[in-house]
């Protein structure tokens, strides 16, 4: 009797597993076929905000994929900066977010803004992943060691060690003008960011 119950329970578990594992491959690009890890649907936000619009953006120095050391303060008085944190290399939404920015360079240029991409991955991983995207016009920085230190400073380090999908718009005085800590499962709309860039000049 008990065996039967256990058997049915197992069958149901298997069915439920199939039911709930319906892959979310929204707009997945063919280019990355087979190489993108599907984490399923994650908790939209899993960190505590530390910064607010109006705060001074914390400085950082990180190594880029191309080997340069990049600091936020080097743009002080020169350029507005968009910092785009994405959770991790080889994950679905991020693999499509930066290639989009790659063809949106004119919006950044028009508003005297540069873009910096940051993930908590190490350089070799970022190298392979960004290569798969084609040539990116903006630097991609590795926040790998001390692990996620910059993400943590910005209040976007999740409990499992990856970062949120977050955008920070920082003006030439290094003041944060806009923060979007986005649902990790979704891609922020480009026009929202562009509107924020257009506000910078005013």
């Amino acid at each position: 009797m008990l065996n039967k119950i256990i058997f049915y329970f197992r069958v149901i578990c298997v069915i439920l597993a199939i039911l709930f594992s319906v892959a979310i491959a929204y707009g997945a690009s063919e280019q990355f076929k087979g190489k993108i890890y599907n984490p399923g649907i994650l908790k939209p936000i899993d960190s505590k905000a530390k910064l607010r619009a109006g705060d001074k953006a914390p400085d950082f120095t990180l190594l880029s994929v191309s080997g340069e050391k990049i600091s936020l303060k080097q743009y002080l008085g020169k350029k507005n900066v968009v910092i785009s944190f994405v959770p991790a290399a080889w994950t679905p939404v991020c693999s499509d977010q930066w290639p989009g920015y790659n063809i949106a360079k004119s919006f950044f240029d028009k508003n005297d803004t540069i873009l910096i991409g940051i993930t908590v991955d190490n350089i070799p991983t970022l190298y392979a992943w960004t290569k798969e995207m084609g040539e990116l016009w903006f630097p991609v920085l590795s926040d790998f060691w001390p692990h996620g230190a910059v993400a943590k400073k910005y209040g976007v380090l999740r409990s499992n060690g990856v970062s949120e999908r977050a955008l920070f718009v920082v003006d030439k005085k290094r003041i944060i003008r806009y923060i979007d800590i986005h649902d990790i499962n979704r891609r922020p709309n480009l026009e929202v960011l562009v509107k924020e860039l257009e506000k910078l000049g005013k």
Partner: protein
Amino acid sequence: MKKQFIFLLVVFNFLTFLVYPILSAECITPSKDGVFPEIAIPVPQNTAEKDYLGLKGKDTFKLSQIKAEVLILEIFSMYCPYCQKEAPLVNELYQSINNRPDIKDRIKIIGIGAGNTPFEVEVFKNQYNIPFPLFSDESFSVHKSVGEVRTPYFFVIKINADGSNKILYSKVGSIQDPNQFLDLIIKESGLNKEG
């Protein structure tokens, strides 16, 4: 008590079996020789695009209303690097069709931007000077109705006079050589015989 429990389990079991096909039904991508699902797309506001597709009115249109015998439909995303690389090839395909008076008015191309806002579609269109109409599918509704395909995905659809349709080509990935692709379409659709 135990019997009741088992009964409930069996019923639940049965129900899940019943529900599963319903849930997954909309996830099937129509293949060659199949039928493209009915979709409604907003009529373009741009007169040139409206004329190209032979559409009237302001609301939505169905594929069968497009003035064409064969429709090439690309599912793309502005964010997808492979679609970005593909864009010049599809433009070339458009030009090849445009250069042939015998088929120019009979084969049309549209693109559907899966999950893209109208703004994002516009960015893509401007970046690659795309000469054919692109539509935003911000809510992924078209994308879902064709089984959430990877991008770029190409459908070639024969539109019959009675409004029905038949899929001549349904594949993910690059069209490779635009001229060979066009030859294939002409052959598959029988346009060369009727023309």
